[in-house]
């Protein structure tokens, strides 16, 4: 029996410094995603990789929660464990009060319908038109034909691809594909949206527009978003809270402004430093330029 630990205490030392773009107001809702002591080890012939070495996470209702880290830090594994695309070795995941880790296949399927997911490479169905892609989760949930048609219209308008309903994914640009993927992920009115590097394959302008869309959706629908990325700028624009992952552990977490302006962990410091370095056009490590 995992006892829900109340709101983790985040030191208030660092004053929230205004960033270039206002972040979404920190939501104070009840816990939407609770992760307790999650562990996952991959065994390869050569070595054992501890992708997750005991992760605890509390994502509240209405949060846009960034999960950042370098490659191999376990951030994608963590996200994929939330809807159990990846089975953790131990630990629990609780989604909207329901413990996902103990569900049987059928119940898990039902729970997953309430958890939308978007990906770096979109993963739309090439065999279906835009409209049919958006309709897919509704078909799976056995919605009526008329209901599906109405919902597809509504979602297409929301994400701004109304003029492309009859097109196939093969005819769309990356940004358009991600919009369709977002509409598809929202079709069943999810309580949570998981995003696995959803903007990492997009150009800056498209990334910006997708971030605005996600923000709008968060504000209009109160949708909780867990956003995995390695792009710190994206987190700064989009998220209100962030966790830095390193070697399968959470190095630090807190309000975005706080983590950015006063990173305490080694990984956090390096990430912030490198991001700043890129912005300023030069990067110095240990006195040597790269």
């Amino acid at each position: 029996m995992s006892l829900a630990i109340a709101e983790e205490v985040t030191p208030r030392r660092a004053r929230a410094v205004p960033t270039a773009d206002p972040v979404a107001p920190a939501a104070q809702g009840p816990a939407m995603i609770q992760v307790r002591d999650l562990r996952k080890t991959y065994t390869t012939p050569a070595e054992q990789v501890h992708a997750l070495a005991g992760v605890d996470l509390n994502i509240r209702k209405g949060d846009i929660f960034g999960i950042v880290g370098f490659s191999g830090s376990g951030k994608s594994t963590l996200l994929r464990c939330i809807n159990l695309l990846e089975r953790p070795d131990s630990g629990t995941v609780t989604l909207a009060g329901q413990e996902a880790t103990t569900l049987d296949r059928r119940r898990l399927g039902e729970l997953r319908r309430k958890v939308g997911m978007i990906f770096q490479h979109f993963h739309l169905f090439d065999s279906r038109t835009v409209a049919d892609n958006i309709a897919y989760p509704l078909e799976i949930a056995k919605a009526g034909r008329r209901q599906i048609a109405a919902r597809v219209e509504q979602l297409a308008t929301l994400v701004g691809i109304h003029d492309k309903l009859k097109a196939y994914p093969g005819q769309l640009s990356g940004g358009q594909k991600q919009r369709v993927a977002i509409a598809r992920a929202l079709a069943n009115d999810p309580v949570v949206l998981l995003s696995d590097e959803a903007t990492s394959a997009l150009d800056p302008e498209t990334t910006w527009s997708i971030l605005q869309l996600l923000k709008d959706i968060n504000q209009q629908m109160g949708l909780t978003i867990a956003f995995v990325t390695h792009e710190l700028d994206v987190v700064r624009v989009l998220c209100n809270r962030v966790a830095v992952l390193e070697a399968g552990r959470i190095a630090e977490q807190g309000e975005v402004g706080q983590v950015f302006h006063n990173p305490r962990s080694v990984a956090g410091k390096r990430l912030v430093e490198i991001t700043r370095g890129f912005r300023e056009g030069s990067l110095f490590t240990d006195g040597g330029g790269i």
Partner: protein
Amino acid sequence: MNQLADMLLKGLQETVYMTFASAGIGLAIGLPLGAVLTITSKGHGLESPRVNRVLGAVVNMGRSFPSLILIILLLPLSRLVVGTTLGPTAALVPLSVEMAPFIGRITENAFKEVDKGKIEAALAMGTGPWAMVCKVLVPEAMPSLVRGTTLILISTLGLTAIAGCIGAGGLGSLAIRYGYQRFRTDIMFATVSLLIVLVSAIQLTGNQVAKRIGRRRHVYE
């Protein structure tokens, strides 16, 4: 001359009938087989190493028999189902049983070509095993399935010639009984020519259909 033409025409009809009917029955067995092989493998929603291994072993066993031996072994089954061991209809039983494991593998290969990310997206949306096959694997793999079916039809066509050795009829039987055993080079030449035309027609049609599906989806390989 007229008699020869009649003979060839009848042979052609029998061959076409045997090929398409036994490939059809084979597909009815092999497609579900390939679907189960795929869906019980890792990461497709109904992972079951035991079922997968047992089914895989059965398929391998089915494919290990030399064709002629398997056809002979299955003759009693033909007698049971069709009532005779002679003629094209009797040949459907061994031919489709012979083809089913092969079709199962072809189908499995086509399904495994579907991008793993799409499977994951489908799983993340709560797709069950049945919907995974009908709504994701089959439509997404359709161009590969069409190309696979082309391969299956041509393999079946080759197999009808072997069945022709033991009384199935068809062009293969003509080639053996007349062309080979009675030294009728003209009949040998005619049957082989007809078979070449048949194979080419199947291949061209298959390519066209697969290409058209890809073009409609704006997916070009």
